[in-house]
């Protein structure tokens, strides 16, 4: 198998995942947090593809399909929550939704 070496692909996936994670941790805007989540999911999916390609296995692609499905479900639930929160608080700042503090 030629083309992109696995290490490159995995580094790219790691970089993407870290970016997403950083976005999730430091952005306060909920839309950006959802986007960061998507990036993390896709980074994981990329890692599956790269690994599947490297070892010549089909499971990597099957896992990616699962990840895509999961991401779609996550996005729909996340957007619905976002919609509700926006209606209630009139802002997209996640820190305002802290009513569950102990």
């Amino acid at each position, binding site marked *: 198998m030629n083309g992109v070496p696995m290490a490159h692909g995995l580094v790219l996936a790691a970089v993407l995942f870290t970016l997403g994670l950083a976005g999730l941790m430091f952005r306060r805007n909920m839309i950006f947090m959802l986007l960061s989540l998507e990036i993390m999911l896709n980074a994981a999916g990329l890692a599956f593809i790269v690994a599947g390609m490297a070892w010549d296995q089909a499971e990597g692609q099957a896992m990616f399909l699962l990840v895509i499905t999961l991401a779609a479900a996550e996005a729909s639930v996340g957007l619905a929550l976002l919609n509700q929160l926006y209606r209630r608080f009139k802002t997209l700042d*996640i820190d305002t939704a802290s009513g*569950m503090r*102990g």
Partner: protein
Amino acid sequence: MTWTLPLTFLLPLAGTLILAFSGARLGRRGTTWVGVTSVALAALVTALLAHHYLAAPEARTLTLWRWIAVGDFQPTIGLRLDGLSLTLLGVITGVGLLIHWFAAWYMQGEEGVTRFYAYMNLFVASMVLLVLGDNLLLLFLGWEGVGLCSYLLIGHYYRTAANVRAAFKAFLVTRIGDAFLAIGLFLLFRELGTLNIAEILQRAPERWSAGDPLVELAALLLLGGALGKSAQLPLHTWLADAMAGPTPVSALIHAATMVTAGVYLVARLHGVFLLAPAVLWLTGVIGALTLLAAGFAALAQTDIKRVLAYSTMSQIGYMFLALGVAGFEAAIFHLMTHAFFKALLFLSAGAVIVGCHHEQDIRRLGGLWRRLPLAYVGFLVGGAALAALPLVTAGFYSKDAILWQALAAGHGALLLAGLLGSLLTSLYLLRLIVGIFHGEAGSEGARRAEAGQGLAHGLPLVVLALLSTFLGAWLEPPLGSVLPAPHEGSEGWHLALELLAGGVALLGIALGAWLFLNRRAWLADVAARGLGARLWRLWHHAWGFDAAYERLLVRPYRGLVSGLRHDAIDALGLLPARLAWWLHVALSRTQGGKLRLYAVSMVVGATLILLVMAVAA
């Protein structure tokens, strides 16, 4: 007739119960009637008993039932009538009746009459139980009963904080003595195996030789109890404050009940005390010290009732002196005459206080002899008896008997103390009587003084005044069969002592009359400057015992208590609870509701786990 014996305490007890359960339904007249009648009936029963006893003077016991049965410890509810208990019984019910009757006059217009009579009756019942009990446990029941009643009655006007404190003080100080007494009883039971008084008196000489440390200890503990109840040094501080109660209560406490209990206890257990010569000597010394200290303190009081209170202390000191020289008969004889004239003095003081609209500061009274003639006569007769005016008063005979016993037993120092005490007695009495009845009235209350009216006011005073004269001394208590024979000595010495004692009393009276009638300005001048002022302050505060106890005992105790409130050991026990609480606070802080913080902590946690796994691998 012995079967009537329980009636002497059951009747007053019934009075208490009726009054307690009737509430205020009986009304003022009904309450007074029940309260006085119950004691009157008890006095009647006592008179019958005395009649029968004197016809055939032998001790009778009546065992009602067995109280408790624990192994060998089987105290009974048993009553014993002999010369000693009959004498005390007569004093308690007789003088008690007169005081109850007088109180009917004194308490009109006062609040809480039902409560007052209920407690007064209970007081009499407890005291009768104390003197009739044939075992020390029953005696202890009566002993505690009088303690309780004194607390209740001293705090009669409970709306004033000072009165409540005085009641508390009386209760706590006598409690210290009671603790000694209880330990003494334990010791006697352990050593002799019985609490029956007759058996104790019989077994003690078999068990112990004279001066045995154990019997000295037992006698010392019993003496501790007697000192507390009888207000002797060093447990005397409660008696002066006990004046907070109504005046008939003071009369009852000082004359018929309560303070005489200690004298009775020592006389009753004379067999134990005779085996303990050191404690007997201590008894006499304490009596002498108390009679002098209280005599000086009485010189510098400004409240009528406080003068009388210190005079009681001083007279009980005489009784302890007599006990200390083993003159038990003289002690009981003085107890009886003292009951007569001290009751008279207190009731007359009550007449003055009510007559002058509750003015009881002798500096603000004066010139009352014309307005309150009966009280004046009462004070003169009672005072003469207290000062032991020779031949005509009861006090002379009883005090002379005490001094004679001291001389015959060879206690010269105690005799001197007694003589000096009688000089002091005359002085403070003259100061009191002159202050109240002569000179100029110092207050509006004294100027508008009204003499009491009615039988309840007059009759008790007249009867007690008669008993305070030589007529009272004719009532010779039938003690020969109960107490050891008094010391004998040569008649010549006795006559010399009588002359000396009479001379001292007359000298005191003359000196007092001269000082307080003619030299008042000079006296006031002396008492206001230099050494005189210092002595006045010292005596006015009764040698500073209260302040010393406050500093040495009360404050350290309070400090200890307030320290223990924040219990150090408890704090240790609470440590796990504290820890759990801190953890709870810390953990609930992490639930801040901030989603991003959760995310960060998840990342940190996951990273840490990965790191650990990497290191471990």
